[in-house]
């Protein structure tokens, strides 16, 4: 009796999970499918699911019309660079807040987070003007800088929570063993925090890769990452669903692959502390 009930529950929840997963995944699947259709079929009603005339001509057109590899390189530099710099700043910041907190530490953390509550458009004009006068518009450095600043609060918060989980005793043991603060950071804290660091890094890479507000507003061609590349396909001449889909598929492919291979690490990092 009891066993049958549990089997049924397992079956029902498995089906439920698959359905839910499919629902979440569907837009991506649809986009990939659309990228292999002709423009006409792409918005045909009723839509055809699998039985249409498969073609790769959209990809050819997209590559011909714009330089995918340039934008992909930009995306890698911008997402990678901003993540790297953010981590370099965030590790010592989170370390000091986690291990030698003062009365104001909580306030500082909240203040950092509060900067994320402000809509970015609120500072678009001043940032734009600053960038203009410093010649940072449409430059990779400019984008690395702004994305780094934008994600820094999240990176610090995440690292702070991971560092908090590390037993104090172990760091004190390192201190007793004669380690200076720098060596304690390098030899003890960082290796112990690797799962947390990895998931913070991955999450930040994904956030930076997909960031569209600042990249769209501050870059046009030379420094433009893949987000700008996608946006160029919803152009004034009209929407080209199939080509837009092809461009989007190309844009998300690298990060999707990265996410796929690191999903275990990501899940572990995101639930670190919650389950242990």
């Amino acid at each position, binding site marked *: 009796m009891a066993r049958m009930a549990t089997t049924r529950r397992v079956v029902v929840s498995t089906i439920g999970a698959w359905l839910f997963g499919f629902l979440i995944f569907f837009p991506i699947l649809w986009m990939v499918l659309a990228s292999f259709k002709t423009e006409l079929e792409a918005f045909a009603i009723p839509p055809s699911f699998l039985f249409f005339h498969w073609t790769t001509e959209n990809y050819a057109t997209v590559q011909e019309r714009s330089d995918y590899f340039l934008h992909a390189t930009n995306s890698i530099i911008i997402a990678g660079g901003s993540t790297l710099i953010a981590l370099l700043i965030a590790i010592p910041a989170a370390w000091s807040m986690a291990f030698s907190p003062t009365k104001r530490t909580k306030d500082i953390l909240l203040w950092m987070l509060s900067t994320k509550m402000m809509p970015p458009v609120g500072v678009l004009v001043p940032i734009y003007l600053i960038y203009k006068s410093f010649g940072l518009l449409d430059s990779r450095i400019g984008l690395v800088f702004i994305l780094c600043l934008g994600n820094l609060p999240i990176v610090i918060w995440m690292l702070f929570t991971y560092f908090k989980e590390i*037993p104090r005793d172990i760091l004190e043991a390192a201190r007793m063993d004669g380690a200076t603060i720098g060596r304690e950071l390098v030899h003890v804290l960082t290796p112990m925090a690797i799962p947390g660091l990895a998931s913070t890094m991955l999450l930040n890479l994904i956030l930076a890769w997909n960031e569209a507000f600042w990249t769209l507003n501050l870059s046009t061609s030379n420094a433009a990452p893949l987000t700008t590349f996608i946006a160029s396909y919803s152009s004034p001449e009209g929407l080209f669903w199939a080509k837009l889909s092809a461009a989007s598929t190309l844009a998300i492919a690298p990060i999707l692959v990265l996410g796929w291979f690191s999903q275990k690490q990501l899940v572990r990092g995101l639930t670190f502390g919650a389950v242990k």
Partner: protein
Amino acid sequence: MGQITLQDVQKSFGPVHIIKGADLEIADGSFVVFVGPSGCGKTTLLRLIAGLEDVSGGKILIDGKNVVDTPPAKRGLSMVFQSYALYPHMSVRGNIGFGLKMAGLSKDETNRKVEAAAATLNLTPYLDRKPRELSGGQRQRVAIGRAIVREPKAFLFDEPLSNLDAALRVQMRIEVTRLQKQLGTTAIYVTHDQVEAMTMADKIVVLNGGKIEQYGSPLDLYEKPANLFVAGFIGSPKMNFVTGEHALQKGAATIGVRPEHLKIERDGAGGWQGTIAVAEHLGSDTFLYVDAGPLGMLTARYIGELSLHAGDHVSLVPDPARIHRFDASGNAIRG
């Protein structure tokens, strides 16, 4: 060398005064144990010596040099934590050798010393394992190995054996004592287990509420407790205290007699009369818990087996040479 001197060391956490002026002189090479009830400040005092906490006042001298402004890394002490605090991402070799690596020793020399330390502690087969692949006792040994390999001026232990089972505790207790004697390095050892304190220490510091109640050898503390607190804290079962008329006769506010210094008589008329409430027969010892009416509950210990049972009437005669006298403020009266 490892002579440690505390001069009026104070510690407050915010408004709370935890260590209320500690003065202590720890001779080079001696084994000193801090005992006291939970929350009395043993760990805090040890951490102050280690440098993991900053003093709020007073001086800490190591070999005559005031170290209150010296960071822990530079004090030349090593510590064994209750939680072991091993580096989880390093092998046993890495754990033991970490301090040497920090000190800038060459790889060869580090390896040589690590292997020697591992051999002393029977850890050689485990050198390449990670801490999570070791048992509690082995982890404890690694923690000790990490402490000895650096040849520090002194070892600081914070209840290092409290996570081990009873049999292993006894074994490790002996091993730690033997190792310390062999190395001749000063050791400060925190515990709230008074058997550990009595058996391991050259000298014991009894702490209570952030104050040092007495500092002396185990037998000093047993034979000449300075006050009621020490008298009650050291010795098991606890010393019996009697107030009132019997005490006044001896010219004291309170008198104390240890359970082993009460002579048990079946039908004597002298001494303190009472009825046995509980009798514990251990074979080697017999413990009697006697309801002595106005004197309260008294504990008596007999070495060997004594066939007395609950409900039996007994008379307890204190050994006159072994009576401790205390004045109204709880301090021992000598002479």
